[in-house]
């Protein structure tokens, strides 16, 4: 009797949940089974930055094969020179009146500014992210996940992997123990090593530089917590002059005396690789690993992080409003969140550059957990201690700060 009641309660609960899940299923589909059925036998056109053979190979091997074997979906990976190409294509399709399922792109690897462009112009399909079964592994309550560059994701993109700002140095030139661990220490380091440091100009195409400056706001103001939440002009006005003052005080000891600054990662890496500066920026949890493998930094490069205020963020998959194979796109976006595939993308041997898209703590099955542990223990010696990174991790803040910092940096540091 008791057993029966328990069973019925369970049944009711599971019914309730299945109802809930189906209510959250992506628009146009009644259930996840509907999605699988519609995707069966089709193709998925994945548009992504194609500049890394390692990433391309990873996608073909780790996603292409299971897509074909488990779901009967053919993966068509379309390499791009830059994500903005896909954004402009969707924009042109919209202007040409291509609607319904008549577009060309099913998925775009995306985040930040490109995502915002498409979302602002209402060119995305969704909200779909919560309707993916593997969405349960995603830490949707974490502002680093549910905000993309400070702008709400609203289920219009689903995470793939993550990144966190920190630094690289060349172990052939410098020692790990001598590296600065805060902006205050960095100031001293710059004064002691004139001409050996620069940072990426905050601005379009140089968001890493904006991030570098944003973190100064956090340190000078005593912590990132007060910056979370809606844009606060008063708070910004209080700290901005002090940030510009600090940056201007560095100027005479920067590379080229601060007369100019590198404008993107590529320029920064080449200055570092050519030995013109001693520090570089990285976003990978594997530190210098990916760029060392790619040859854009010297093979002796290693990573280090400040002990606080290192901004982390996620990158995602988005589906254009006119995607021809929306069901297959959903299956793909769900597949990449499988715990074992997530562990595979973190394993250095597999060549992918990025970190977890899921919260590893939410994985409960044994196989998934084992894969995750194995990957965690395998990051290689070009990576910073993962505990230091985790302790320093903070989320990005409201998007308004981004534009403001870029404009004010130009007026108060570059043109002053």
């Amino acid at each position, binding site marked *: 009797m008791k057993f029966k009641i328990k069973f019925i309660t369970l049944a009711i609960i599971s019914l309730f949940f299945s109802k809930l899940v189906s209510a959250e299923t992506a628009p146009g589909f009644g259930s996840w089974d509907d999605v699988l059925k519609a995707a069966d036998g089709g193709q998925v056109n994945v548009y992504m930055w194609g500049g890394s053979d390692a990433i391309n190979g990873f996608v073909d091997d780790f996603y292409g094969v299971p897509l074909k074997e488990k779901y009967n979906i053919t993966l068509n990976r379309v390499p791009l020179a830059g994500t903005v190409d896909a954004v402009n294509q969707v924009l042109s399709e919209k202007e040409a009146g291509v609607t319904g399922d008549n577009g060309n792109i099913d998925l775009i690897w995306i985040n930040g500014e490109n995502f*915002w462009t498409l979302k602002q112009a209402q060119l995305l399909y969704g909200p779909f992210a919560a309707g993916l079964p593997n969405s349960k592994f995603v830490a949707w309550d974490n502002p680093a996940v549910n905000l993309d560059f400070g702008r709400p994701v609203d289920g219009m993109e689903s995470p793939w992997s993550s990144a966190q700002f920190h630094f690289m140095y060349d172990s052939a030139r410098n020692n790990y123990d001598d590296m600065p661990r805060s902006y205050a220490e960095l100031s001293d380091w710059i004064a002691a090593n004139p001409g050996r440091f620069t940072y990426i100009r905050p601005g379009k195409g140089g968001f890493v530089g904006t991030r570098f400056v944003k973190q100064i706001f956090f340190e000078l103001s005593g912590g990132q917590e007060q910056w979370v939440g809606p844009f606060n002009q008063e708070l910004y006005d209080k700290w901005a002059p002090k940030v510009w003052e600090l940056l201007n005080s560095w100027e005479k000891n920067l590379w*080229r005396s601060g007369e100019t600054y590198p*404008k993107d990662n590529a320029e920064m890496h080449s200055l570092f690789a*050519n030995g013109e500066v001693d520090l570089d920026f990285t976003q990978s949890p594997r530190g210098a690993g990916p760029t060392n493998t790619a040859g854009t930094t010297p093979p002796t490069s290693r990573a280090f992080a400040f002990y606080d205020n290192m901004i982390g963020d996620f990158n995602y998959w988005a589906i254009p409003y006119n995607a021809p194979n929306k069901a297959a796109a959903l299956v793909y976006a769900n597949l990449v969140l499988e715990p074992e595939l997530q562990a595979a993308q973190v394993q250095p041997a597999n060549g992918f550059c990025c970190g977890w898209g899921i919260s590893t703590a939410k994985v409960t099955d044994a196989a998934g957990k084992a894969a995750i542990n194995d990957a965690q223990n395998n990051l290689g010696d070009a990576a910073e201690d993962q505990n230091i990174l985790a302790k320093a991790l903070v989320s990005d803040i409201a998007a308004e700060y981004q534009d403001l910092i870029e404009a004010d940096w130009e007026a108060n540091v570059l043109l002053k």
Partner: protein
Amino acid sequence: MGGERLKIILSLTPPLLIIITLFFGGILYGLLQSLGYQPAIGKYDINFSAYYNVLFSERYARMFWTGLGLNLWVSFASTFLAAVFALFAALAIRKTFFAKTICNFIYSLNLPMPHLVVAVGMIFVFSQSGLLARFASQLGFINSPGEFPVLVRDKYGFGIILAYIWKEAAFFFIILMSVLQSLGENFEELAQSLGANKWQRFRYVILPLVMPNLFSASIIVFAFSFGAYEVPALLGVIYPQMLPVMAFEFFLNPDLNARSEGMALSIIIALIVMILVIIYFWLTQAKIRKD
């Protein structure tokens, strides 16, 4: 008579159609966007605020006017110097001598080279971590490569000018060679027999003969260097910034509203070049009439 006319019309139509749809279509579309008309994000108002922002707003005016100054400086300097170099090279080489073919080949070699490649080559050779800087420090002329003078990514645009000279001199050279070759040496020999010295032969015979071609080639080079993006993007600094680079940054802005400013700036660049071309035509026509 009518058939002849039809033939002309028929043969002119395809290229005209392409020019009209691609060129004027593009310009019209750009003009509309620069005036704030962007249906994709639901903006249908026509106004001049993007132009005002680019030209006069506190945010962009300083970038724009310094950028315009740099643009004019880089385009004039590189066009003039490339023309002068090419002229002397062509004059030196046109006389038959043993290495003529080789020299001809070397001078024309970088004509098919993409500007992008030339710009990257400039970085490899002339940057502070480039070949020259490393040689100089190896040989002890300077203590470290960092002491090498700043020749690329400098705020005066020297690196950009150097790249354009390197590239466009070949273009001038080809044009000049074909003119000089078709002229032959009769005029010069005539002048010589009338007692003109070397300088006079150059100044009063050669120069007037090649000037029309040199001038039209200059216009092409000037207009190109004024509106081209890749060389200043690679070899320029972030301030002052040449206008095409600045325009492209507006397009990188995730805020679609900024596309109006980008288009406004592009239209301004196109207008300036067009005005300069018109002035040039007016000048040459006046000169032809005078002659």
